[in-house]
């Protein structure tokens, strides 16, 4: 019962800390854009926190540069358990277009374990939200079902899921 409650709270309140490891800003502004009225991450209970101490999810963007990787690693260590890492953008997944440059180590996963990869250059804010959902789907079977459906149908119109957010399935015109 208590486990269930804790699990529920973790699903409902994933606070994120945004970490730029040397990207081109494209993904960064899309992460910030996903906070703004059009996408509004707060409806999932997500808040962006400036300090890794308060965060549950590290959202890392950009290829890992040689100058910053020690600090990135320290930030990862400072985040309290349970923690997750979301690699947003192709650079964060693998180094992307900068792979092979002398000052780039590669993707985020060269320095810290990554839970979910969100490819795209940059991914749409929707895709970032989907990445977060994908991450949460490992905690909550209800979201897992939704994610599966989204993946299967791809871009479709008739997906109906209730109870994901407490706004119900209110449809807009």
């Amino acid at each position: 019962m208590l486990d269930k409650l804790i699990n529920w709270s973790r699903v409902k309140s994933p606070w994120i800390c945004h970490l730029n490891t040397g990207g081109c800003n494209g993904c960064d502004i899309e992460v910030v854009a996903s906070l703004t009225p059009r996408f509004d991450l707060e409806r999932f209970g997500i808040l962006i926190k400036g300090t890794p101490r308060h965060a549950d999810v590290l959202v890392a963007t950009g290829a890992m540069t040689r100058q910053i990787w020690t600090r990135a690693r320290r930030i990862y260590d400072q985040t309290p358990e349970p923690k997750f890492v979301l690699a947003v953008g192709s650079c964060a997944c693998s180094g992307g277009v900068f792979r092979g440059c002398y000052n780039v180590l590669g993707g985020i996963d060269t320095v810290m374990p990554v839970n979910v990869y969100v490819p795209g250059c940059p991914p749409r804010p929707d895709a970032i939200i989907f990445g977060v959902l994908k991450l949460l789907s490992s905690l909550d079977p209800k979201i897992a079902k939704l994610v599966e459906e989204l993946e299967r149908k791809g871009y479709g119109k008739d997906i109906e899921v209730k109870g994901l957010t407490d706004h119900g399935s209110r449809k807009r015109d």
Partner: protein
Amino acid sequence: MSILLEVLYLLVFPGFLFLIAYALFIEYVDRKLYARFQHRVGPPILQPFADIIKLLSKEDLVPKKADRKMVSAIPLFAFAAVITAFLYIPIWFNQSFFSFQGDLIVVLYLLSIPTLALFLAGWHSSNPFSQVGAMRAITQLFAYEVPFFLVLLGPAIIADSWSIIDIVNFQSSNFWLILMMPLGFIVAVIALQGKLERIPFDIPDAETEIVGGLLVEYVGRRLALFRMAIDIEMVVGAALISALFLGGFDAFISVAGLSPLAQFGIGFAAFLVKTLFIVFLLASIRALFARLRIDQMVTFCFKWLAPLSIIQLLLITGVKYMGWF
């Protein structure tokens, strides 16, 4: 029997459980309003609750250099202070359980404790950000505390009593004091905003300047306690202002002949409506302004708020001296 009732008062209503639930609800209302002002959807209703549970279940970290005992004790201290303060504020009928002559001063005193606790917390977590935040918090404390105290003195002078319940009773038999001292009400709301460290006075934890400010190093359940303490402080502040200026549980209806249950219902409903109204005002202020710099904040408080509250006080004493009340 009376001991049982007392325990019930303390733990369930209006004490511990109700207060926590209501504080979390108020936080939800505040965040939702803020989001709607910004044309967003905002968080779901159980969001604050989920945040707290999650924080309670997080791993516990204390920075190496920090003083472990202090770091653990301070949030509890702040939490206890605000919960105690609430017990003196009447919320549904004309006697608060712990009311006594002079409880207004006790409440004001207890309401200052969270800020001091925040200062100590920032200071003892040995992070430079939080130390800068602590400095700013303590500087700010002196700025808003003066007008806040001065302006809350007014109702006490009018009603000739240091007891909140007397002031409320005075209002229900005469009129709401906001009619007599609108200036005081405005100053009180602004000063409360400063007390709660929200925009435009969120200088101690200015997120874009010093990251999380005071609470940078706070993790898990200590952070949860602090968040809760600040939420409860908001409830207590709103309830205090509504009791002193908006007539507390008074709802224009004569409750003399009604059954105790109906009396309770009406009074409680009035309490809810009034506190929510004040939260609405607070949320509007938060959405309307940019953050001030610390020196601008201090100047603002001493140049505008303090003189205004003194003018209000002089007016009140004049009225009192003339013997109109």
